[in-house]
């Protein structure tokens, strides 16, 4: 039987990089921190708030996201959006993700045969 702790660690490792990919995809439509958190969770990317909020800032510092304060609503919120740079980075990341999937599929079939 697989230990729960070991499983959790491996899942965490597997998921770690995908949060960035998911955020860059989701923020093609501008959004603020909490709403993005909700959307990611709804789409099967559960992520901790204390991971996501600092991550958004870091991606912004790296120029992959742009931000804008929206003061029209009840409370001012910072809206993030995937920048052009972020978009080109995203396409590279998506290619790689697809390549991983292809490799795994090929490996599984190769072993099965």
């Amino acid at each position, binding site marked *: 039987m697989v230990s729960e702790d070991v499983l959790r660690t491996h899942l965490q490792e597997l998921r770690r990089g995908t949060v960035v990919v998911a955020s860059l995809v989701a923020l093609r439509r501008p959004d*603020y*921190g*909490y*709403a993005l958190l*909700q959307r990611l969770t709804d789409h099967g990317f559960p992520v*901790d*708030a*204390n*991971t996501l*909020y*600092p991550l958004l*800032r*870091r991606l912004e510092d790296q120029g992959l996201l742009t931000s804008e304060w929206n003061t029209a609503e009840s*409370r*001012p*919120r*910072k809206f993030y959006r995937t920048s052009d740079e972020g978009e080109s980075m995203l396409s590279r990341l998506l290619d790689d993700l697809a390549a991983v999937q292809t490799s795994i599929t090929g490996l599984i079939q190769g072993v099965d045969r």
Partner: protein
Amino acid sequence: MNTLTDRYLAATLRSVPAQRRDEIASELRASIEDMIEGRTDGGQDATTAEREVLTELGNPDVLAARYADRRLQLIGPTYYLVWLRLLKLLLSFIPALVGTIVTIVEAAEGKGFGAIGPGLVVALQVAVQIAFWLTLTFAIIERSQTPVNLPDWTVDQLPDAPVHRGIPLADTIASVVMLVATIAYLPIQHFQSWVRGTDGENIAILDPALWSFWLPALIVVLVASVIFEIVKYRIGRWTWRLFGTKVLLNLAFSVPLVWLALSDRLLNPALGERLSWLADADNRNLLGAAIAVGTAVVVVWDLIDTAIKTRRQTA
């Protein structure tokens, strides 16, 4: 206003770089309020919701470190191994060396057996200082923005595999114990020789005048021999360089000893008062010659034995 959220924000922002503090503050506050609202909309009361949201966000220091991209470790994996190696290297000989020097200096000043205490204290202090400053240096390097270029590992750094141990651990331990016992004997015989003077005071076996130079010098040679034994064990087999070092160490110990014995300066003249046999100059010369010959025989026999071993193990 001093709500839990205010306190949480203050705790987080305390350790965030000042130039981004205000922006992080407004954004984080909005996010927290959004999260609380998300829960109260689901029918939870505001106080519980606030507590749960802040609990979910976790320790503010951890959050602040994530915002600031700060390391939550004193020395990370990049430098840890280098730090550990340097620490081991420095601690392996500097405290012992300094402690020995202090002990010898104190002994030379006539503190005798009591010189070991200050020596131990200084050795301990030196060890603590080394550990502290080395760790501090590495902690600063860890946090500096410019990466320090460490030499890359290459296969050439691989140590020799210990295929054949030419030097058994038992031999090394026996040698070290013998050397340490000899070192300890020198101060002990000065205070507890079990030879008593006429009025009951202790008479040292070796001439106390030798403490001004010769006995400390011999102790230095003995300490060097202990280090030699350990190095030899780490190397694992005899080499001609080790053999050469051993020759030098043996001569550094035996030549002064033989010379002192032959010139009748080794034994305490006061012994003659107690042991009448030693009062006679001829007898003293005989004993000195016996010590000199005995020492020479042991040294020569040891060197021949070592030379044979070295030849066998380097072949």
